[in-house]
């Protein structure tokens, strides 16, 4: 029996848009085990990204508790959340969100600036992370000089460089062609299987979801009963 990494209990998230209340998540319960690779699917506006943001400490629930690896994110302050994110979680976005002014290596190093590591050590770790994603030879290139798939690999390297337990991916292949998407997904699988990362991936793409260990479907702020193994 694998141990539980994340627990969500009775989580609701309500946005106030002008006078209108939008219930994005409604009394949601979820357990995620360490070592899981979970795909979250569902139509636009079903609350996938909001759920991901809550798990990553980017957002806080209106009600309920979010517990990740023993940290109660729902009751932490913004600066506590910042510190927590720096070491416990890595993010991967659809549009990579690399800093265009920095080289691949410097982009990957970014999270390490928040630690007390020496410049040499930071550089060494960034090289390792780039090596894992298969881009060691592109370290000195800037994002503009890389292809979409390569940019996403750099983003993945950035997500894993501080060795977090949890990787959160928001449509990581949404902007890539099929072949490149498959490569990225295989990389995520490797990170899950060989490096023991717990991965939660929001996607629209059923083929992408196939790479995950299991798939959860969301609709209108709730998890649907059916899961795909």
């Amino acid at each position, binding site marked *: 029996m694998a141990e539980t990494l994340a627990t969500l209990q009775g989580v609701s998230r309500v946005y106030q848009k002008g006078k209108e209340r939008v219930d994005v998540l409604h009394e949601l319960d979820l357990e995620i085990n360490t070592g899981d690779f979970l795909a979250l699917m569902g139509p636009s506006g079903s609350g996938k990204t909001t759920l991901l*943001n809550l798990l*990553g400490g*980017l*957002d806080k629930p209106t009600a309920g508790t979010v517990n990740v690896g023993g940290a109660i994110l729902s009751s932490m302050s*913004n*600066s506590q959340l*910042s*510190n*927590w*994110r*720096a*070491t416990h979680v890595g*993010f991967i*976005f659809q*549009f990579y*969100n*690399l*800093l*265009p*002014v*920095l080289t691949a290596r*410097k982009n990957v190093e*970014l*999270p390490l*600036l*928040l630690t007390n590591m020496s*410049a040499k050590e930071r550089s060494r770790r960034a090289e390792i992370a780039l090596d894992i994603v298969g881009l060691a030879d592109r370290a000195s290139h800037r994002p503009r000089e890389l292809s979409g798939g390569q940019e996403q690999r750099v983003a993945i390297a*950035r997500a894993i460089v*501080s060795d977090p337990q949890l990787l959160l991916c928001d449509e990581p292949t949404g902007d890539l062609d099929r072949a490149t998407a498959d490569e990225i997904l295989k990389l995520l699988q490797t990170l899950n299987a060989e490096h023991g990362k717990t991965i939660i991936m929001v996607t629209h793409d059923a083929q992408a979801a196939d790479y995950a260990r299991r798939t959860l479907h969301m609709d209108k702020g709730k998890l649907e009963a059916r899961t795909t193994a």
Partner: protein
Amino acid sequence: MKYFGLIWKNTWRKKVRTSLTILSVLVAFLLFALLNALGYAFRAGEDVSSAERLVVIHKISLINPLPISYEARIASTPGVAAVTHASWFGGYYQEPRNQFAQFAVDMTAYFALYPELIIPPEQLEAAAKNRIGTVVGHELAEKFGWKIGDRIPIQATIWTKADGGRTWELDLEGIMRSNDPRGSTAFMLFNHDYFEEARAFGKGTAGWYVLQIAPGADPVEVANAIDAQFANSPNETKTSTEAAFAASFAKQFGNIALIVQLILGAVFFTLLLVAGNTMSQSVRERIPELAVLKTVGFRDITVLGIVLSESILIISLGGILGLGIGWFLVQGVSQQMGASLPGIYLSPQAMLMATGIMIGAGILAGLFPALKAMRLSIVDALARG
């Protein structure tokens, strides 16, 4: 410091924009340096004046002369270590536009009282011995190409000679300089004995007295004692420290300093606006990137610091360049035009003040964009990407 690389790279994201902003900041600080140096000249060397020297002038006005007999009476006042006299000559060399200060003095006593004036002892001795000997500052010697041994005719505007002539011929015996880089020596000294003997009127008077107070004596008490001595005589005196005298003279120029400050105010206001606009443009353009920094775990305060540092960096780059160019220009002007514009000087205080302004302006210009960056909601910002 480990963020410096990131800050530096972000600064140069838009090279044209950053360069233009730096250039406009450069101009602002160049103006600051030049106006400050000019303002220093207007303050007439207050800073180089001594607090141990007192100046005794006629109470009605500086232009009224005092009897020469006062010298002995001042010398015997308790607390006075040494005293000498000087008189304004007000002449010019060759053409009226070549005006500079000339003083009739007792050479030996005068140099003894002004140790900051450097002159080779043999030149001083020669100047004192030659009845028509004169000593000039190196600025004047350079400007007019005078060499020791030259005979220099000075045209009087006030002091006609007893023989009706207006040309006073003087032999250049010595060239002086100041041991203080801020001090100007753009003036001429010649012997009071010759002046007294040859002038057509005003005999038996001197323009003012300068005295050195004895060690430990209170300058205010000495000044009061001197003024009390001559109270209720036809020639009452007003004694003040040299520094206060210089300051009161500088104040005669009045609101000029205020006007200079107004100009600088306008310049810096504009500068803030230009730099602030650049910063807010730059922050607006990279909201998603700033959100990424936060996602990765950068704390709000760190993001604030990064944006503020960028703003301070841009202003400091421009500021340091502007001050540097200003410094060179002021050096050049004071060497080339020391005779016509004496006392122009960029003081360390002004440099320090400029540095303070750089940091202050950097913070002010970057504050609103930085606060915006700090308060950025990650969720919204990423949604925009």
